[in-house]
């Protein structure tokens, strides 16, 4: 081989070798999954019953309910505040609904006032418009109708001449506007819409040519108290609804709690603002029957009903408040008795029941300090079967000896642990944190009114006070119990939108679309940050 050619080959080989030495290693195999951190050691509970000394009287509440406050038609009064915490030792669970406001507002009718009516009610499930509205929104969908353009020809042309012009340009008139002066023209398959627009635009007989752009609704519920639900606006729910219209009935969300006021059964009544919500058969693991009616929890508050309202309150019905995944189906599962106490065994049973009966999401607004193997194995069973588990992180942060990590079951790595924020997107004073915390979402702060709307900054949903199971009110309440169902509802929408079956994909999606709060990156106070419905449903691009 001539010396020149050998020199060329040598130089080229040197360059290629140098480049391969410099090129970076593919890092996919080295990717470390986000870790939840060490489990930590169980924290012993004090057995003392803690409650604050405030006056509380049902008759006093009733009297207050009738008082007009500043002309407000809703008559929500907030000068009575009660916080109570019940702790039971060892392996048991307590509520994470810390407070509620009182007196309540009657949900049925107000004296001398007529409730505003919705402009349009929610389409029934078998209405074809229902399936069309799902998934169509202004965000993320097509900008214009493919294969069709809008063309206006100059005045003076006859119908036949317009048809001929369109045909000569390769198009076919689909529709002539009856009330306007443009034509809808179907373009050849060999052309894209931008190409066709440009092609038609240069013709002398064409005044303008443009794509037939889509126009989308911007959904805002007509529920009269929706404007008080600041917690939905904090996580961009309206933009989220523009992408996915509140999930769909095929997505079942199991609410493992104190039961739900979902049916008229014996002395129990269905909450009026759950009348349009879909339910599937659940189970009462406390009384071992098929009627998981909410009997209240601890202080008589309908905890499970309130939690369910966050997820799937009947929405756009001209009544009360809204829910997040209002088209999802709820599976009520009762594991907490009237004192607000349950057992790990019942929770494990409920998780398995939910998984075996088709639940895609499980919400657990409850917890305790002890790890339980039966419960963990049930969670692993659910996770391995594609169920997403969301749990409250706990409300003990302001205790004299706050825990170093979130409570169980939130602490298990298969569960998404959710802490709480207040109106200002600050970590709520009660919200547990730690290395196992994943994200935060609105849980409220009933001790403040930072938005100056005259009401406490709690999560507003409908519920009741036991033993009046037939009287429903709208409560502002706070706690990580209220934060967790926000995430459960958004997850239901995500599953509805993209039919994701792998929980880890959903967990990573939530973590990497959360709005970073606190110190940069993951931290013990906010986890990966504040969930955002819009960003979650938009998915991930290269850099956003």
């Amino acid at each position, binding site marked *: 081989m001539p010396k*020149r050619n050998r*020199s*060329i080959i040598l*130089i*080229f080989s040197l*360059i*290629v070798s*140098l*480049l391969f030495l*410099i*090129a*970076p290693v*593919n*890092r*996919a195999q080295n*990717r470390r*999954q986000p870790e939840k951190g060490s489990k930590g050691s169980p924290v012993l509970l004090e057995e003392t019953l803690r409650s604050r000394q405030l006056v509380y009287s049902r008759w006093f509440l009733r009297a207050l309910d009738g008082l007009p406050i500043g002309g407000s038609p809703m008559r929500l009064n907030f000068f009575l505040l009660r916080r109570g915490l019940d702790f039971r030792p060892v392996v048991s669970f307590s509520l994470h609904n810390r407070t509620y406001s009182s007196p309540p507002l009657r949900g049925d009718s107000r004296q001398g006032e007529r409730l505003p009516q919705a402009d349009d009610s929610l389409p029934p499930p078998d209405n074809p418009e229902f399936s069309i509205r799902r998934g169509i929104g202004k*965000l*993320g*969908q097509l900008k214009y109708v493919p294969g069709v353009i809008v063309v206006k020809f100059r005045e003076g042309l006859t119908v036949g001449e317009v048809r001929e012009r369109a045909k000569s340009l390769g198009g076919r008139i689909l529709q002539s506007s009856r009330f306007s002066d443009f034509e809808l023209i179907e373009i050849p398959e060999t052309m894209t819409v931008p190409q066709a627009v440009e092609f038609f635009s240069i013709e002398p007989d064409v005044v303008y040519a443009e794509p037939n752009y889509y126009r989308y609704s911007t959904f805002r519920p007509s529920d009269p108290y929706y404007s008080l639900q600041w917690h939905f606006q904090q996580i961009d729910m309206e933009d989220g609804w523009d992408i996915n219209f509140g999930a769909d009935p095929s997505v079942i969300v199991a609410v493992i709690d104190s039961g739900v006021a979902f049916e008229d059964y014996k002395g129990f009544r269905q909450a009026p603002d759950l009348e349009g919500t879909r339910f599937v058969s659940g189970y009462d693991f406390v009384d071992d029957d098929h009627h998981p009616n909410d009997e209240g929890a601890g202080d008589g508050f309908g905890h499970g009903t309130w939690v369910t309202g966050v997820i799937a309150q009947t929405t756009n019905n001209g009544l009360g408040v809204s829910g997040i995944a209002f088209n999802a189906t709820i599976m009520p599962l009762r594991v907490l008795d009237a004192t607000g106490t349950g057992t790990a065994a019942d929770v494990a049973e409920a998780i398995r029941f939910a998984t075996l009966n088709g639940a895609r999401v499980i919400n657990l607004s409850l917890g305790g300090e002890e790890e339980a193997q039966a419960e963990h194995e049930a969670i692993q069973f659910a996770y391995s079967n594609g169920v997403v588990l969301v749990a409250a992180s706990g409300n003990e942060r302001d205790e004299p000896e706050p825990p170093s990590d979130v409570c169980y079951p939130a602490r298990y790595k298969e569960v998404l642990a959710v802490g709480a924020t207040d109106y200002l997107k600050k970590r709520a004073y009660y919200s547990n944190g730690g290395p196992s915390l994943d994200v935060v979402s609105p849980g409220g702060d009933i001790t403040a009114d930072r938005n100056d709307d005259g009401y406490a900054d709690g999560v507003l949903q409908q519920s009741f006070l036991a033993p009046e199971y037939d009287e429903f009110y709208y409560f502002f309440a706070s706690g990580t119990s209220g934060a967790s169902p926000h995430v459960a509802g958004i997850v239901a929408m995500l599953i509805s*939108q*993209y039919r*994701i079956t*792998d929980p*880890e*994909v*959903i*967990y*990573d*999606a939530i973590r*990497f679309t959360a709005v970073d709060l606190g110190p940069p990156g993951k931290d013990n106070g906010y986890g990966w940050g504040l969930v955002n419905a*819009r*960003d979650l449903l*938009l*998915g*991930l*691009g*290269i*850099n*956003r």
Partner: protein
Amino acid sequence: MKKGVLIAVAIVLLSAPSSLLWGQEKGIIRGVAMEGRVGFFCPMQFADSFQAVFDSRGGLVFGAGLRVELPKGIYVEGVLDYFGKEGYRVYVSGTKVVRTDIDTSISIVPLTFTGGYRFKLKPSVIPYIGGGFGRYYYRQKDIATELRGESSFKGFSGYHLLGGIEFRGDKPLSFAGELRWNTVAQAIGEGGVSKYYGEDNIGGISFSLKVFLRLK
């Protein structure tokens, strides 16, 4: 360290055997040529993110520029390139990718300046090497960036190394095959898939075919 490398390269070039150096031609500017190029860019520095969003290993890159040949085989070159790709927003977990139906696209417009050396083995075959710096304008365009008002180009500094072989005849036109490696750090990685995979560099390797039109 970079200064040391540059000094070492200059010493090597100046002490190279005379058979590899250019002859005693007169004038500072020995040649001027316009160039165009088409090639394939492989984004090796953000390969995982690119594969997830665009389901592809790379894409076509186009460019044009001007080369000025100086004495002793040295040349300088300014080139403007364009690379664009369309895909869909996704959800990722490890190597699993779930695609949405929300479209997204990226565009990279590098403006680079190169200094290099052309070896004169024989008049018709001229290997060359070079290196330089540039400004890389990057844009991601989709509904998420539009909502944030981030759909415009942003510039980032980068560096590159290249090597190639030019085939020249008697006519003003000549052709070359060139391999280029570039690095543009901290251009991405603030969010999205690049944050998930921990990739912040939009550099990679490109192989391109170049056409020169000698003006002098």
